[in-house]
């Protein structure tokens, strides 16, 4: 039989115990978060988070399937996207003097725009998704990166990564080969039926709806191939290197 006094004593004991355990758990959790936050940064973010981004990348790369396409829209739904990102686009003379430097394993080539325009012309109306959150349906014209590679640097195909940068080297991105070879990854020279304007990356930019806009580099000046992940402008500033969609 339980007297009320016994009940009170027992609930008081259970309460003390539970709050003690809960308090210890809360302190441990808070300590864990403090530890996470205070780790040395690796490319702009505390290293445990960088590791987590890499782990997520491994999962995403294992799940990636080139046959999965970004949804395509009727051309008439295309709109003008915001011209976010002007890094590497300062020099207007760069358009007039532009050439594409292709550093392939077999040697270095300098290509003109007609070398890209000579490849099968591809039209694509897909959503350009900014890492900030907005997205715009845009109509692009260009050549598949896969066709470009097959024509000008077929020996580079076994490389793990592609590095692209602006003529002045101020903006640079890296792509793993699977995304570079995705059928919707284009070297684009026209947007919404018009040649690219300076602020959208004239004369040649990358369009890849399997990546956030940050990887869709404007005014490509140099393309190279590596077995290690190429440097990436925003990945050095705390963002996910992979940035895949």
């Amino acid at each position: 039989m339980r007297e009320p006094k016994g009940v009170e004593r027992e609930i008081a004991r259970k309460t003390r115990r539970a709050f003690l355990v809960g308090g210890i758990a809360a302190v441990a959790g808070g300590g864990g978060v403090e530890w996470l936050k205070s780790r040395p940064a690796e490319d702009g973010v505390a290293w445990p988070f960088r590791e987590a981004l890499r782990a997520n990348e491994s999962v995403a790369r294992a799940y990636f399937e080139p046959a999965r396409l970004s949804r395509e829209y009727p051309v008439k739904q295309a709109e003008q996207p915001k011209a976010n990102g002007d890094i590497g686009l300062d020099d207007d003379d760069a358009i007039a003097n532009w050439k594409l430097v292709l550093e392939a394993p077999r040697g270095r080539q300098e290509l003109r725009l007609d070398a890209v325009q000579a490849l099968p012309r591809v039209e694509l109306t897909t959503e350009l998704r900014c890492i900030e959150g907005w997205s715009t349906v845009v109509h692009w014209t260009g050549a598949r990166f896969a066709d470009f590679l097959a024509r000008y640097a077929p020996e580079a195909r076994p490389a793990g990564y592609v590095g692209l940068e602006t003529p002045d080297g101020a903006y640079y991105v890296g792509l793993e080969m699977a995304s570079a070879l995705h059928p919707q990854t284009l070297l684009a020279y026209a947007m919404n039926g018009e040649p690219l304007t300076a602020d959208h990356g004239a004369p040649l930019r990358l369009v890849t709806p399997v990546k956030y806009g940050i990887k869709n580099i404007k005014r490509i000046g140099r393309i190279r191939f590596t077995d290690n992940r190429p440097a990436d402008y925003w990945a050095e500033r705390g963002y996910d290197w992979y940035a895949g969609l």
Partner: protein
Amino acid sequence: METLETKHSRAIRWMHWINVPLLGVMLWSGLLIYWADDIYRAGIGDFTLFRFFPDWFYKLLNVPFRLAEGMAWHFLFAWLFTLNGALYVLYTAISGEWRYLVPTRRSFREAVQVMLHDLGIRKEPLPRRKFNGAQQIAYTGIVLAGAGSVVTGLAVYKPVQFGWLATLLGGYQPARLEHFALAIGYVLFFGIHITQVIRAGWNNLRAMVTGYEVVSTTGDAPNA
């Protein structure tokens, strides 16, 4: 006379309290992300009742220019949040505790009665069960909302690889809006939940911590 009765199992209590900081981190890091393109508002036509969110609110919580940080936290803690939620569903399913939680046909009418009671309009006492109809709807709804956050979040996170999911949700931007709406839903739930916990009193809250509730058995003389 009073006795101690078990109310919430250990597993439920742990998962409930672990979810508090996890959801907190998800909401906070989600806010850091949302700030970068804060397009939503409440209003009709040109009239805006409330903008998500006013500048003073961002400033207060030190939100601006932390998108990368927000994403780093969001995509680490999303795993923990999902895992905790999945374990909760699994546990309630296997233990049979789902029977207390899942609404029945009478829950909806009962929920109206509970609401009228809590607003002081209806005087009849509430049903003496572990969870009344309103609680069943709320506690099942919040779990469904959690699942919704995972699903809409996945569609926003990988809209090409999970393109079918994004399409099912109406598209990329609609999935994003749904994900945001669910987050607002948690904040509203939290407000009501805390209010109700305060109203229910210490014995009820203590049961969520200790697992036990002090129950007075009828027939005995009250403590004099």
